């Protein structure tokens, strides 16, 4: 009853005041509630062999529940989060319980208004991206007002203002933004039938943070401006965006007053059985936060996409993944996907897919100005030169179905990983690694299958060679059980040649999934899209429950 009363008030507020009791019931019956839930809990054991510690709480947990009510052009929702306390590796700021996300939004004609929390992205995100990546503990949700307006067919405007979430609080800076997205083919009659489709866009985002620094005169208002274009014709697509940020001295850049800039270019070609994507990016001093003294992943206003492949296999994904360098990087990526047809010499009876990827990230070229006591511009940078290597990854992946019972995926990767910069380990040598992975699934019957994953990582640097073996038996559609061992057999220190064993069991049923595992977890880095968090070594019992409706 209370919920109904609340919704009635909301509906009245948003213009449904003329509803009679009967109409109200009818309107309510059109409403829909959906949501999802996740709970992760781990019991930690001390394990000196891998450096795993037992926290004072012994058991830690993360959980959340999303609820969204939609009724026609109106929707509202909440998210409850609980960290008792947060699992190891998550930022310490996640501690306690609370409603961390609540919003109401309505659409009337061409106007859409959101009050409360929202996520938003302008273009590729170089100027603004508010999003959540739960696995990273990353959430820079806005709390404020967002207005979207379709000015005319093909012109969409977005304006927003608010503060950004940081754990259970909000950052002290205020963020204001405006974006215009224009389809030229819709706006200009002469282009309506043209096969070349062009979209242009522009955004301006500024932040306000009071200057309370006694050392420097800090700009209280800092703005980023971005312009973008997307051109599509048949199988070819081009996407480009350039962003410029005014002087923004911060902890990230050592309080220098150099403006920042970023450019992102991506072109692609696709047809049946073939896809090619070429990308390039350069960012220079483009860390943009609503609190100039924050670090790590806190209160970032913009997003600088990583031009590296997002690997999923354990050794590749968590030992040496790339983290975007906000202060400056030049990156390139080429991605080719090709499908060998059935019946061809290479494709064989069932065809074969191959994916070849190459990515590289370097520092920008910089020349120090030694002006820390004068203008504090910090350095100058030649746009067309590149600096030291941060990261290189050449990899290919072959997917092959050998028969109705056996299919496999085979991966090779060659990595160059600058530990000093990416992992923040001064004095540690650059890692040169070769990785080979065979992922083979054998299907006994329609419901029974066994998946085997064998991985090896060979390197003379860091912790040396690693091997992983996984056996996963699935009894579809509900059950799976798996055992895994990772072995650091090539570690130069014999005591650290440790097995990381793990056993897990899971149950799926419609929208519910329960997983339980026991064993060791290797210390590593977990990254999504170039944004990373460090995961410490642990040992213990892990339980995960997810559900959606």
């Amino acid at each position: 009853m209370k919920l109904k009363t609340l919704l009635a008030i909301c509906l009245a507020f948003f213009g449904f005041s003329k509803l009679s009791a009967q109409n109200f019931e009818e309107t309510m019956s059109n409403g829909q509630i959906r949501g999802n839930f996740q709970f992760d809990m781990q019991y930690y054991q001390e394990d000196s062999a891998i450096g795993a510690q037992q926290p004072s709480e012994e058991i830690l947990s993360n959980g959340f529940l999303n609820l969204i009510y939609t009724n026609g052009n109106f929707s509202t929702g909440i998210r409850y989060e609980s960290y008792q306390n947060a699992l190891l590796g998550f930022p310490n700021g996640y501690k306690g319980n609370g409603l961390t996300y609540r919003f109401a939004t309505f659409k009337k004609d061409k106007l859409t208004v959101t009050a409360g929390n929202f996520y938003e992205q302008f273009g590729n995100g170089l100027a603004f991206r508010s999003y959540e990546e739960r696995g990273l503990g990353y959430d820079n949700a806005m709390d404020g007002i967002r207005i979207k307006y379709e000015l005319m067919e093909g012109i969409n405007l977005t304006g927003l203002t608010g503060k950004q979430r940081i754990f259970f609080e909000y950052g002290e800076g205020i963020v204001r933004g405006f974006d215009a997205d224009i389809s030229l083919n819709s706006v200009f009659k002469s282009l309506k039938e043209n096969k070349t489709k062009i979209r242009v866009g522009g955004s301006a985002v500024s932040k306000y943070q009071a200057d309370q620094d006694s050392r420097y005169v800090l700009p209280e208002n800092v703005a980023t401006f971005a312009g973008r274009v997307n051109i599509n014709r048949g199988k070819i697509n081009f996407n480009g965006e350039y962003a410029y940020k005014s002087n923004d001295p911060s902890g990230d850049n050592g309080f220098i007053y150099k403006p920042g800039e970023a450019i992102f270019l991506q072109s692609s070609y696709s047809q049946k059985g073939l896809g090619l994507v070429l990308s390039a990016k350069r960012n220079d001093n483009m860390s943009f936060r609503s609190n100039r003294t924050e670090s790590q992943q806190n209160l970032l206003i913009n997003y600088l996409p990583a031009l590296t492949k997002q690997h999923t296999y354990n050794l590749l994904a968590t030992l040496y993944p790339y983290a975007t360098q906000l202060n400056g990087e030049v990156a390139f990526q080429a991605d080719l996907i090709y499908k060998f047809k059935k019946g061809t010499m290479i494709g064989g009876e069932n065809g074969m897919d191959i994916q070849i990827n190459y990515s590289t990230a370097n520092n920008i070229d910089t020349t120090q100005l030694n002006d820390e006591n004068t203008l504090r511009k910090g350095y100058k940078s030649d746009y067309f030169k590149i600096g030291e290597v941060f990261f290189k990854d050449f990899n290919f992946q072959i997917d092959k179905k050998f028969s109705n019972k056996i299919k496999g995926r085979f991966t090779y990767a060659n990595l160059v990983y600058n530990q000093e910069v990416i992992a923040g380990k001064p004095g540690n040598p650059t890692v040169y690694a070769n990785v080979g992975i065979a992922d083979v699934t054998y299907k006994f019957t329609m419901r029974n299958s066994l998946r085997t994953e064998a991985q090896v990582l060979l390197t003379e640097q860091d912790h040396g060679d690693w091997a992983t073996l996984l056996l996963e038996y699935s009894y579809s559609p509900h059950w799976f059980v798996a055992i895994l061992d990772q072995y650091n057999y090539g570690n130069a220190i014999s005591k650290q040649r440790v097995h990381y064993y793990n056993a897990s069991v899971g149950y799926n049923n419609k929208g519910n999934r329960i997983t339980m595992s026991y064993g060791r977890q290797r210390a590593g880095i977990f990254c999504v899209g170039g944004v990373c968090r460090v995961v410490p070594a642990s040992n213990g019992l892990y339980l995960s429950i997810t559900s959606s409706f």
Partner: protein
Amino acid sequence: MKIIKLLPLLFVISFASCDKVDDPFPSELGKSIFLNKTEYIVDKDFNVGNTNELNTFINNNTWTKVEAPDNSTRRFITLEEFTGHKCTFCPDGTREIIRLSGVYNEQLIPVGIHAGGFAEPKPTANKFYTDFRAKGGHGEIYMTTFKVAGFPTGVVSRLGDANGKNDWEQDIISIKDDAPSAILKMTNHYAASINAVRSNIEITWLESRPEDFNLQLYVTEDHIIDWQLDKGFENPNYDHRHVLRKVVNDTYGKALIKSEINKTEKIEYIFTVEPGWKAQDMEVVAFIFNSDQTSYEVIQANAAHVK
């Protein structure tokens, strides 16, 4: 289509939310204290906030006193030279200044502003490691303001943009006989024990002028022996002259009250100097200039040693 024309307007509004900082360092000056018809502006480091504290500060320290020359009948002239220790032809500019000083004596007040790429130090090298640039980035701002296109260049009493050494004397001659618009009287007091200077300025207007004027205070240091590239020769014992060490009252100085004939304005700056600077070679340079950014012309100046 009319609506599309509004889009740039929205961007302009967004542009307004952007602060460009030219000088990263906050002013070291504290709030004004008025005592005996004089406005005292005291460096924050001295923690002087009222007249009692000011009297105590002055009375509790021992001060030596130096007076600047009388300029009641002559227009004194500034020559702000842009230079750098890695600028191979800049010593030619300094030699020209030394020659001009021999001709015009105290009427010409030279200031060597080290700025730009030639002035960048090499902190880790075994030569050219000294940073002669005044803290706060003022030199670079002046370079932009006076459109410095090459080195050495200089601007005489801020008569337009900076020009080459061969034009300096012509500019001096063009104004050296002008009747002054104001008398700029300066008396410096120095307390060695606390590295403090009290620079007392008394401006008496000799005519009423429609323009607005600012007062600028510099500290220079003479005879700094250090590395200089001189026509290709790397001289470790070069005599650097009249080096701008400190811009006392921010990049463009302090606004003066409206000029009115026979009216007097008294201002005293109390500020610190670095312990490593040689007091006997330090001068305080003060000048009055047109605050209109299309002009900046210096109409009167003076200089006196600190000690």
